[in-house]
């Protein structure tokens, strides 16, 4: 099986049953939902679409990661009101819907005045999950979903692809293999995994201490529980949105739960003053945090920055993505107030530097911090929370690694899957069959906001248009768009 192209005979010789389907989406999360939703709305019947996934509902992984990073259902995500993952039209946005549901004009007023008179409106996580459940049901998700684990996607000699899938049984166990023989494939497997900073990873490997050194995206509730019971010193690393949420949780526990937590926040870089090379490309930064409403400036999703990025190649493109994004968090007044207060009262302390050593010490950890000035500080801590992100490489995902090894896929300057402007995975064409990818695995391509609800819709629309040009379905025009929206608005199944 270690060949880049398989024929029908190869599959038959291995006695793998074949199921024919025109289109497969691998992943079954938010990326697959955006893709399948768009194709269903474009008029492709559910019978022509297959979703291969180990997830029961599309929002499952998202909710798991959000919960771990301390965004439970009632808290708000970092997402625009019109980035409605359940509605490809983006209107009505989450703000208007919340205003109607709660009979409270505040969210609607906020979205009208944002970001000039108010902060940006952002939706509650629970509202998003609920909307996903409703839309998945409406488009017949259950009929298209095949639960199990995808092993491999390979090109088929006669054109198209084989997707090898191990179905999960009723008990959740996986067994056997099925080959889905399809014409087009969409890969949206999400984050290949979490990766700790190298120094923390080294500590974990050496001491096998997964209780005291934790990643913010992995379950770590025990840290907060412990901090509520006794005074703890907790080291936070990272200065992005997740670090902000973790800090909020810790300080909320101090304010509301009488925790006596001391927080040491370790920065690798410490911006303090506007970032950017010119008056027309400058964002605020203060006390270690770079501030912007979303991961990228808004125009990266659909304005002049999208156009600009689309015209760049290689390292230049990668650099613009970094300049627009990089480590940043949202400017929320309540967060700033907590940190300023923590700073004044001494329970929140900032340090700049790297960890030069981490050692177990009694019930805690002894860390040595190398500061840029050359000074060395020693710190006894109870926990270290790594909130630096989900930066794992695509090699850590078996399907993606296989695509690079055998499927003809290449890596872009950021080490992710190299895709065209329409999210075609370069080098993987198979006869008239096409493979597309969307989501975080395509970061570094011609679109910056790939890892966002709106970015998933953008990718889905580009892919659907590209498929239509290749003869699969037709482009959604104004009339179809409007009539389908009317069905969506009335929640009429399609």
């Amino acid at each position, binding site marked *: 099986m270690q060949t880049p192209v398989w024929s029908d005979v190869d599959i038959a010789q291995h006695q793998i049953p074949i199921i024919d389907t025109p289109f497969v989406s691998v992943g079954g999360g938010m990326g697959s939902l955006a893709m399948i939703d768009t194709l269903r709305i474009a008029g492709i019947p559910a019978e022509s679409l297959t979703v291969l996934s180990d997830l029961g509902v599309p929002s499952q992984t998202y909710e798991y990661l959000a919960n771990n990073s301390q965004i439970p259902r009632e808290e708000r995500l970092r997402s625009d009101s*019109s980035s409605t993952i359940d509605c*490809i*039209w*983006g*209107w*009505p*946005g989450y703000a*208007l819907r919340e205003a109607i549901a709660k009979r409270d004009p505040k969210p609607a007023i906020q*979205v*009208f*005045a*944002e*970001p*000039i*008179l108010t902060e940006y409106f952002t939706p509650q996580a629970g509202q998003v999950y609920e909307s996903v459940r409703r839309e998945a049901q409406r488009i017949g998700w259950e009929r298209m979903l095949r639960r199990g684990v995808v092993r491999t996607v390979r090109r088929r000699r006669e054109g198209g692809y084989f997707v090898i899938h191990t179905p999960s049984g009723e008990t959740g166990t996986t067994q056997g293999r099925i080959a889905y023989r399809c014409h087009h494939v969409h890969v949206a497997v999400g984050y290949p995994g979490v990766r700790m900073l190298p120094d923390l990873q080294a500590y974990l490997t050496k001491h096998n201490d997964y209780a005291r050194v934790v990643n913010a995206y992995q379950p770590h509730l025990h840290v907060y529980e412990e901090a509520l019971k006794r005074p703890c010193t907790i080291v936070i690393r990272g200065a992005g949105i997740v670090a902000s949420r973790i800090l909020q949780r810790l300080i909320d526990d101090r304010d509301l739960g009488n925790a006596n937590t001391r927080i040491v926040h370790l920065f690798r870089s410490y911006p303090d003053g506007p970032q*950017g090379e010119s*008056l*027309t*490309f*400058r*964002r*605020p930064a203060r006390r270690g945090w770079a501030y*912007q*409403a979303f991961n990228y*400036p*808004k*125009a990266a*999703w*659909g*304005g*002049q*920055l*999208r*156009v600009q990025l689309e015209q760049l190649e290689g390292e230049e493109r990668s650099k613009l993505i970094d300049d627009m994004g990089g480590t940043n968090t949202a400017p929320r007044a309540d967060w700033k107030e907590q940190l300023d207060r923590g700073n004044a009262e001494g329970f929140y302390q900032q340090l700049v530097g790297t960890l030069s050593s981490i050692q177990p010490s009694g019930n805690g950890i002894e860390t040595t911090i190398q500061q840029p000035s050359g000074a060395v500080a020693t710190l006894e801590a109870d926990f270290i929370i790594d909130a630096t992100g989900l930066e794992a490489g695509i090699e850590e995902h078996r399907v993606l690694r296989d695509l690079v090894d055998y499927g003809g896929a290449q890596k872009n300057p950021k080490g992710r899957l190299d895709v065209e*402007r*329409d999210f075609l995975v370069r080098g993987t064409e198979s006869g008239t069959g096409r493979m597309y990818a969307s989501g975080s695995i395509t970061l570094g391509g011609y679109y910056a906001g790939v890892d966002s609800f709106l970015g998933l819709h*953008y990718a889905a*629309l*580009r892919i659907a*248009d590209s498929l239509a040009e290749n003869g699969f379905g037709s482009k*959604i025009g*104004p009339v179809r*768009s*409007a009539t389908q*929206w009317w069905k969506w608005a009335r929640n009429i199944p399609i």
Partner: protein
Amino acid sequence: MTPTLFGRIQTRVVMILVLGFPWTVVITPFLPNPDSASLDDQYITMFTALLVVGVVGVGWECVYHGLQQFRWEKDWPTIFGLVVALPEGILTYLILNAGAPWDRRPRPGSFDPGSIPLSTFVPMFLTVWIIIWAFTNGPMQIFSLRWRFRGGRFDSNW
């Protein structure tokens, strides 16, 4: 919204044609007519106003695009879309009242350049503005899925 310059201009022109024009047809007979002008004169004046908003608007869009460059997000907040009605309305009225270059013929006693009633102009201008503003801030996407990704352009290029 996150418009590009070309997207701004396209959106303005299309919206004036698709929403502004029919709305002006409908509302003009119901506007205040203090000088008892003929319906013809009212229509000529109101369509001239619409034309001024379209033509002079291209210049305004260049100004807005320039201002947008100083915003990190490179966006145009919803509220800006309303606030700019003030300077645009004032300039439109001044041009209309001075006599647009293509419309200087005297209409004695009624809707003559120099005596265009504000009570007629303001409701027309504001209603057109609010309708277009409200439509482009949401319902537009029902009909044009790609519009928000294309910075406000309607042409078929991604």
